[in-house]
C-alpha cells in the first residue's frame, strides 16, 4: 500500500479535493459564510503512529462518522474542535445555550446532537455524491453517528476493516477553514478511509490501475 505511484496519489488528492469542495460549499451555504479548503493530504499512516497523526494526545474533538456502502466501501469522518462544533450548532439551531456536552453525557437524543449529526450528514452526503459522479461508482452513506471524544479513539473505528488486512491505513485528509474571521477560525477535517479492496476499485474506475493489491 505504500507503493502508490504519482498518478494514483494525484487521483486520491483529487478525490479529497472534489469531495471536500462540494462539502465546503454546502457548509458555506448553511452558515452563510465563506469556507476555504486546503490541498488534500494523502498519507499512508502506520497504526502505531495514528495517535501522532491526529495531533497527539487526548484532546477531545467532535466527530460525525459514516460508513460508506456500495462499490467502494470505507469510512468517512467529519472532525472539528468541540468549541467550533458548538458554534456551528448554536448558529444553526438559533439556540445560544445548546452544547455538545449532551453528547459527552450520553444524551444522544438531544437537539444539539441531532443538529450536529445533520450537519455531518449534509457534508458527507455532498462529499460522497461528488465522489460518486467523479468515479462513476455507487457510494451510499449509512446514517451518521456522532461522538465527542479523543481523536485517536474515534478514528480507530474507521480502521477495523482495514486492520484485518493491513498494518497501516490510507487516509485522505482535507482541512477546511473559515477565512474571514480573525477571532474564531473554524477548522475542520474530512477524513476518508477507503477499505483495502476499495482502492483498486477506485483506481480501476479512473483508469490508473497499475495498483498491485499485494502491497
Amino acid at each position: 500500500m505504500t507503493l502508490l505511484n504519482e498518478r494514483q496519489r494525484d487521483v486520491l488528492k483529487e478525490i479529497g479535493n472534489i469531495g471536500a469542495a462540494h462539502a465546503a460549499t454546502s457548509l458555506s451555504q448553511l452558515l452563510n459564510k465563506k469556507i476555504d479548503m486546503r490541498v488534500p493530504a494523502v498519507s499512508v499512516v502506520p497504526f502505531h503512529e495514528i495517535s501522532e497523526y491526529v495531533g497527539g494526545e487526548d484532546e477531545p474533538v467532535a466527530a460525525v462518522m459514516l460508513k460508506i456502502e456500495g462499490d467502494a466501501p470505507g469510512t468517512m469522518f467529519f472532525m472539528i474542535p468541540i468549541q467550533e462544533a458548538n458554534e456551528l450548532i448554536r448558529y444553526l439551531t438559533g439556540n445560544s445555550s445548546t452544547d455538545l456536552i449532551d453528547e459527552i453525557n450520553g444524551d444522544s437524543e438531544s437537539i444539539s446532537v441531532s443538529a450536529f449529526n445533520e450537519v455531518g450528514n449534509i457534508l458527507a452526503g455532498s462529499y460522497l455524491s461528488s465522489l460518486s459522479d467523479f468515479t462513476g461508482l455507487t457510494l451510499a452513506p449509512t446514517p451518521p453517528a456522532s461522538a465527542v471524544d479523543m481523536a485517536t479513539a474515534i478514528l480507530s473505528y474507521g480502521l477495523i476493516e482495514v486492520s484485518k488486512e493491513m498494518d497501516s491505513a490510507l487516509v485522505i485528509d482535507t482541512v477546511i477553514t473559515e477565512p474571514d474571521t480573525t477571532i474564531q477560525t473554524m477548522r475542520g477535517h474530512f477524513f476518508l478511509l477507503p477499505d483495502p479492496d476499495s482502492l483498486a476499485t477506485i483506481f480501476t474506475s479512473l483508469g490508473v490501475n497499475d495498483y498491485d493489491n499485494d502491497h
Partner: protein
Amino acid sequence: MTTIIKVGMADLKLASAPDMLRTSGLGSCIGVIIYDERIRLAGMAHIMLPNSSLARKESMNLAKYADTAVEEVLRLLLDKGASKFRLKAKMAGGAQMFTFKTSNEAMRIGPRNAEAVKEHLTRLQIPIVFEDTGGSSGRTIEFDVNSQVLEIRTVNKGVLHA
C-alpha cells in the same frame, strides 16, 4: 529516571520499574497489561481485533489480535525472567462509542475484543485483578510498573486509579 514508554495502536512493549507504559486513544481497542510485581516487569499491548483468524494476510502483527498479543506478551515476559505463577493482568478499553441505527456487527467490536482478551488470559491462567471495559468513552491508560497502579483517563469521567 522514569521514562514513559509509548505503546501505539497494534503495538506491544515491555518495561521495567521505574518506567511507565502508556497507550492513548483506546476506543474499541483493548489495552492489556501483564506484570510480575516481584521483579517489577510489565508488558502492555494495544489490541485491535479479537481473533487472529480474522487476518487476511500471512505476515502477521502479533500485537494486533487478542489471542496472539496475550501469548506474545506472556512469552516476552517469561523470556525476561518473569514467573508464570506471579503474573497478573489489568485491562481497559473495548468501548462502543458510536451507536448506529442500522445494526452493524463491526460496531460491536469493542465488547468482542474485551471478551476475547479475558478468554485468553483465563486460558493461560493469568488472573485479571482489574478491568475497566465497555461503556461509550475513549480511554488513555498509563501503567506504573513500580507501583502497578493503572491510571485511566477519559474525556467525560476524569481520571481513575486502579
